[in-house]
């Protein structure tokens, strides 16, 4: 038996650590073929011709297929599905966002390096790759543009002929008139421009898919690594095949890292299914790491300018933000969702700012698509705002902690609606800030700084406070079955992506139904029994699927109560209590075990019809769209900088997260730790770079794309703050999957800039590579000289 909050070891870990997991590449179907994708070496080019005759004759080759074949077969193209998130939002001029389909195999034109142009299907991967060298594609290079800022300039090459200005979206929200008025009466105005550079998810498990078409009945199955099988099934059914979803089966087994990158539909998944149907044999594709770099959707790539108006006392009056988001060549699985919705969602952070306005341009360029990556727009917002707040504190001569404290939304104001219209459910930001300051030993910093100085090293400290809105797609489905075999089976539409669901959900059941965790099985990832589900994203799993499960357990207990009442011969259900795992009569203490009740229901023993039958429950849940489940946190980072080389070392890191009620502390802390590691990686090392002149991806391997290593990370002190359970859901939980990654870039950035303040450097964009820091120190040194 275990209670909520206990750090039960993850039940799935033994399977995964022993190598008994089943990832998509592990799935082997009889007679399966391997697919290799021929990709564009050009950032932009017209496809003059594709010559496949030589390749088809190579040993082992079964088929070489192009976009023309795809067109002939009449299959459709996945769309960006952004309306699921954006509803009726429009461009400032009232027009619709421009989001053409994600072309599966273009026939006329390639739009980024890595764009798929043909596939080779062969009996082995080697045979397919060998033959791919013989597919001759004649290209006529076209002008290209890789940066969003450049793409907005007059005369820039158009990625899509239909949209000469390269705009996918030009969106505005907030009250610009109120902002202008507030700026007019401000005592201080501070501005900043910050870029959250492009990064990649770098999941350990590469993307992979196997397509299967049953020759007997033509039924198609896609095995794929994803964040939710049904989500992909619906894209296939609605956009690609135009059939009922029930005619398709999508299966996702174990997933080795995804971070949002695996949430959407990809060209290769459609291609394995199409090739399998066309050829009549299963077709498998597993990305090589080089392919991952060019074709896994990237993250971030937003440049924002923000202005903050403050009164003489340092109270924040207004915030104005203008952002330019690079979307890549295709709208990808979410279109302009980040730049239009996710980025402004928490733009005012933890602060009570009277007025705010946001204008976001989402721009096409000749680069790989950008889609949500851990935090999705929120880390970019937190980096921008927290850098701005630190800059303001310095200008006003206030301690960064003090300026924050003066402006936090007070605990008494919840639910609190921000000036950009997001309603946060609950929080006690001041308590979290204080807890983080204590955990980080803020008071001892000056001594640590002096000690570093005596070693000739610069030391800086940075704070980042943030809000993490969770939930994503507002609907979820789930089922519960309690068997006479004393098993409880939970079926859910979310996906375990290394997030501990096989432990958390049994704990939720154990707490409520009083059964051992070992009695509970969780089923997910196969549309054969997962009727529908939006999958795992936006830190929604426990919030959304946990609520569905709670409701199903409510229904089970209600029915059990009625059965017990009937058994004990009372008509008053209020006389029956569900205590532990037993239905107890408060009149005479007689009781029935949960599984005895289930036995009675199934055997039908003199029960009325409505109480008879299997103990199965399911429900659809639509969360309240008016109020957001908003976690919050505060992180404190300390860095040391070698002034001779510019090398930054993170030496201390503290994180306090308030994520509502905690089901399993170890899992929540693991999420925070992993998120912080990714955030430190983004702040110090990681960047996807396209060469402006050639449009080539320069960071196409781990040699050139630097991930954080264990030795780069300090011990991370983690604490959580459980005082503010959410009222939005019966479990009182909030999202916990992204906070680490939302806060860390800002905390590291502020620490670096604090260390560099002696050099008069007010801002520097991440990543803080040694050379970037060193160059900044040289420049300011020269200026002062």
């Amino acid at each position, binding site marked *: 038996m275990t209670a909520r909050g206990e750090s039960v070891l993850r039940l799935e870990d033994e399977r995964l650590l022993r190598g008994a997991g089943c990832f998509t590449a592990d799935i082997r179907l009889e007679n399966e073929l391997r697919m290799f994708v021929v990709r564009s070496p050009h950032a932009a080019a017209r496809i003059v011709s594709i010559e496949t005759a030589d390749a088809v004759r190579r040993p082992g080759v079964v088929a070489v297929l192009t976009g023309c074949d795809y067109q002939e077969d009449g299959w459709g193209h996945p769309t960006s599905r952004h309306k699921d998130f954006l509803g009726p939002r429009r461009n400032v001029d009232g027009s619709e966002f421009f989001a053409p389909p994600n072309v599966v195999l273009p026939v006329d034109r390639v739009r980024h390096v890595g764009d798929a142009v043909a596939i080779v299907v062969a009996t082995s991967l080697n045979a397919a790759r*060998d033959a791919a060298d013989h597919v001759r594609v004649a290209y006529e290079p076209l002008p290209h543009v890789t940066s969003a800022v450049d793409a907005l300039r007059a005369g820039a090459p158009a990625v899509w002929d239909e949209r000469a200005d390269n705009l996918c979206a030009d969106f505005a929200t907030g009250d610009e008139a109120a902002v202008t008025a507030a700026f007019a009466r401000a005592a201080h105005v501070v501005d900043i421009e910050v870029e959250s550079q492009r990064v990649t998810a770098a999941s350990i498990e590469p993307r992979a898919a196997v397509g299967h078409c049953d020759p007997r009945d033509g039924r198609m199955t896609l095995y794929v690594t994803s964040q939710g099988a049904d989500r992909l099934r619906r894209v296939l059914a609605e956009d690609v095949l135009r059939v009922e979803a029930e005619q398709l089966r999508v299966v996702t087994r174990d997933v080795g890292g995804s971070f949002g990158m695996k949430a959407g539909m990809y060209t290769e998944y459609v291609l394995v299914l199409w090739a399998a149907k066309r050829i009549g044999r299963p077709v498998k594709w597993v990305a090589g790491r080089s392919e991952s770099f060019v074709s896994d959707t990237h993250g971030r790539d937003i440049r924002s300018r923000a202005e903050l108006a403050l009164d003489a006392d340092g109270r924040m009056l207004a915030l104005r933000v203008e952002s330019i988001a690079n979307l890549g060549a295709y709208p990808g699985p979410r279109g302009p969702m980040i730049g239009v919705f996710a980025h402004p969602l928490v733009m005012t952070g933890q602060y009570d700012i009277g007025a705010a306005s946001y204008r976001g341009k989402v721009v096409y360029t000749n680069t790989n698509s950008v889609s949500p990556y851990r935090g999705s727009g929120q880390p970019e917002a937190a980096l921008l705002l927290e850098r701005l707040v630190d800059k303001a504190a310095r200008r006003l001569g206030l301690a960064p902690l003090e300026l924050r404290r003066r402006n936090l939304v007070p605990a008494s104001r919840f639910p609190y609606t921000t000036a950009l219209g997001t309603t946060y459910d609950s929080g006690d930001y001041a308590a979290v800030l204080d807890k983080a300051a204590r955990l980080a030993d803020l008071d001892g910093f000056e001594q640590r700084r002096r000690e570093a100085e005596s070693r000739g090293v610069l030391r800086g400290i940075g704070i980042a406070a943030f809000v993490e809105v969770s939930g994503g797609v507002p609907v979820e489905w789930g089922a519960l079955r309690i068997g006479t075999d004393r098993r409880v089976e939970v079926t859910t539409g979310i996906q375990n992506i290394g997030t501990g669901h096989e432990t958390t959900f049994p704990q939720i059941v154990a707490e409520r139904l009083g059964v051992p965790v070992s009695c509970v099985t969780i089923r997910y990832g196969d549309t054969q029994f997962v009727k529908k589900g939006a999958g795992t994203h936006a830190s929604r799993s426990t919030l959304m699927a946990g609520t569905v499960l709670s409701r199903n357990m409510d229904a089970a207990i209600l029915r059990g109560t009625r059965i017990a009442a009937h058994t004990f011969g009372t008509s008053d259900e209020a006389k029956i209590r569900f205590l532990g795992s037993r239905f107890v009569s408060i009149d005479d203490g007689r009781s029935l075990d949960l599984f005895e009740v289930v036995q009675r229901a199934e055997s039908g023993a003199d029960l009325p019809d409505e109480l008879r039958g299997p103990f199965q429950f399911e429900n659809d849940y639509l969360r309240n769209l008016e109020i957001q489940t908003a976690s919050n946190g505060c992180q404190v980072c300390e860095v040391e900088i070698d002034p001779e*080389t510019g*090398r930054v070392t993170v030496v201390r890191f503290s994180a306090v997260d308030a994520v509502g009620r905690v089901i399993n502390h170890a899992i929540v802390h693991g999420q925070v730790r992993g998120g912080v590691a990714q955030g430190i990686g983004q702040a110090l090392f990681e960047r996807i770079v396209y060469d402006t002149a050639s449009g080539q991806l320069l960071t196409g391997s781990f040699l*050139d794309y630097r991930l954080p290593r264990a030795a780069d990370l300090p011990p991370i002190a983690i604490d959580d703050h459980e005082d503010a359970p959410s009222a939005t859901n019966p479990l009182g939980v909030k999202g916990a999957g992204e906070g680490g990654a939302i806060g860390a870039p800002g905390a590291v950035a502020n620490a670096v800039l604090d260390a560099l303040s002696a050099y008069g450097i007010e801002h520097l964009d991440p990543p803080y590579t*040694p*050379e970037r820091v060193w160059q900044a120190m040289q420049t300011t040194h020269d200026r002062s000289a």
Partner: protein
Amino acid sequence: MHEFRLHRPATVDEAVAAHGRAQDPLYLAGGQTLIPSLKLRLARPSDVVDVTSIAALKGIKVQGASLSIGALETHADVADSALVRDRLPALASMAVRIGDQMVRNRGTLGGAIANNDPIGDYPAAALGLGATIRTERRSIPADEFFLGAFTSALERGELIVSVDFPVADAAEYVKFSQHVGVFVARLGRRVRVAVTGGTPCVQRIPALERALEKHFDENALADWAPAEAAFASNLHASAAYRAELARVGVRRAVRSIAASLAR
């Protein structure tokens, strides 16, 4: 990878013979460069001659005033060798900083020297100590061995058997990962300085060596500014930054050696 014929000779002679018979052969030792190149289909050898079963390429021993290290000794072997740690601690400390543990368990001395990666650590150590590279047919001084990026004095089919590293009075390797490595050694009155991360490959800095031979302290660096043109400029670092790192690296190495000699 493309298909190739694999040979697994047991002796140096067999290896050289197998190499000589093939049309477009490559030797395979630890494979830390070759295997990824094969997998990325950048290398297309007709034959791969795997030398890892040749016992004569193993062993670490004292030979006169040098340490003789077999070409097949892995970076982990060298880092852990009591002999190396005792006689040439700077070499062990260089080896333990190559790549990660998996790379060190596989990568070999001979492979690293033969590959002559412009940012390689071993070329800096070999040139900095004035090592002698012994092949099955001759001995090549390090000063004549490293010719250019991924290019060495090795002739077709020539196989490194061992490398003799003179035991220095004191030496130090300062490494700025992916950017620059600086190896400084004092051998009697002579001082050698080798810098990796430059163009086209590892290089000595004779003017600095002479200055340090006169006065072995960091003041000797005062008049020396590395030429930017001598350094590579790429995604990871500009030539100007690398030049500065070379200066910092030499200074730190000299300071450390001076301190160790003073003890």
